[in-house]
């Protein structure tokens, strides 16, 4: 289970990330954007903060706090937040409660399918330090080791007031252009992938070409590729990766042959 050479490395500090200058597209950081671009971005952030779709990934007991949050008593829709059914159409991934290793895999697959900008909220103690499952062999302890997490809601259980509070904080952060954790997944993909491989083994792979996306969106940084992403390359291209990830290898190749 624990592959020794795959121990996660120390994460590079944020401020040493120049935004990938000289390696693919430069990231549009605040200093290099034109005034026109900055005005448009601010306007987009302002609008975005007022219309958010949440995908509730209800893995644990916390799900029961969400119906009152959504419906008439607390009514999230007052602030422009409403539930969404698929990851591809959602802006926020709300992880309620503990994640077993099996569900963590699904969370990562769902997260990678979401379109940026995307925000992750960790709900309850379990996403922070494992909560009451701190010594369980089957549950992960820190969500932010595997996907970048914008905000956590502490508590077991957090009440709907706390959920609202964190959503209001997220709106504030988006409006101010501070909710950029999702870019970190591209800039430091090697760090996140290394932690994922540590749990799921060196063969772990997802169908999403994160490195390609990082290049495309201009978030390629020195931490995007490294010793862990090299293992992906050994697994082959993206088609082979799909077969590698969750499905038996014959599922894909068999169809191509016939």
């Amino acid at each position, binding site marked *: *289970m*624990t592959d020794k050479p795959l121990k*996660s490395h120390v994460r590079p500090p944020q401020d040493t990330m120049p935004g990938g200058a000289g390696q693919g597209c430069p990231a549009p950081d605040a200093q290099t954007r034109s005034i026109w671009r900055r005005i448009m971005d601010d306007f987009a952030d302002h609008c975005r903060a007022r219309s958010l779709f949440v995908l509730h990934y209800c893995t644990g007991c916390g799900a029961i706090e969400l119906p009152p949050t959504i419906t008439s008593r607390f009514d999230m829709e007052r602030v422009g937040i409403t539930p969404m059914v698929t990851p591809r159409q959602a802006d926020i991934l709300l992880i309620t409660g503990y994640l*077993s*290793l*099996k569900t963590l*895999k699904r969370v990562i697959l769902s997260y990678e399918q979401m379109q940026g900008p995307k925000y992750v909220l960790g709900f309850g103690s379990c996403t*922070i*330090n*494992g909560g009451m499952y*701190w*010594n*369980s*062999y*089957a549950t*992960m*302890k*820190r969500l932010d*080791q595997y996907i970048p997490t914008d905000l956590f809601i502490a508590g077991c259980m957090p009440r709907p007031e706390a959920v609202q509070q964190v959503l209001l904080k997220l709106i504030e952060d988006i409006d101010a252009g501070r909710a950029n954790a999702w870019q970190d997944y591209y800039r430091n993909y090697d760090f996140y992938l290394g932690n994922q491989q*540590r*749990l*799921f*083994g060196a063969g772990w792979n997802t169908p999403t070409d994160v490195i390609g996306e990082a290049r495309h969106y201009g978030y390629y940084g020195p931490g995007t590729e490294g010793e862990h992403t090299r293992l992906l390359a050994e697994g082959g291209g993206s088609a082979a990766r799909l077969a590698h990830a969750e499905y038996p290898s014959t599922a894909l190749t068999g169809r191509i042959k016939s």
Partner: protein
Amino acid sequence: MSIPARLNEVLNELPAIQARPAGARRVRVDVAPQGLPALLELLKGRLGFIHLSAISCVDWIEDGQFELVYHVWSHEMKLLVSCHVRIAREPGVYVSVHDIHEPAGFFERDIHEMFGVHFDGAPSMEKFILTSWEGPPPMRKDFNTRKHVEETFEWVDYRPDWLKDIERKGGGIES
């Protein structure tokens, strides 16, 4: 609280069986390992104990034994009988009752994965619900969960630098 006469009659037909009431609608039966299949067969055929609710396993590491508990329910008698057997922890092999109760295959596969007990004649002893698991069966008492967690996961830093800074200035979260 006493054992129903019909049940007692059936239990008396088998050797080396101890039975005692264990609450309303519950009877505990202790049986030798070789007698269990016959017991389940008789309960099923004569008294309608057709529903195997669960098989549970207990690791008595100090006694060097696994305890297997077969919970069967009769819709006819409205009674739950728990049949306890003790088997040697090493090599930890027992016989499958899949031929008597079909759902047993599911429970036996689960116990095999969690405790490492092998059931002879079970339809499948393959990996079941544990993901990416190469280690020993995790529910065995000799598996050190805490050690495993410490090797596999990283803990939250409960006293990060910014908190130490605040503490140096006389603040902090501890009273």
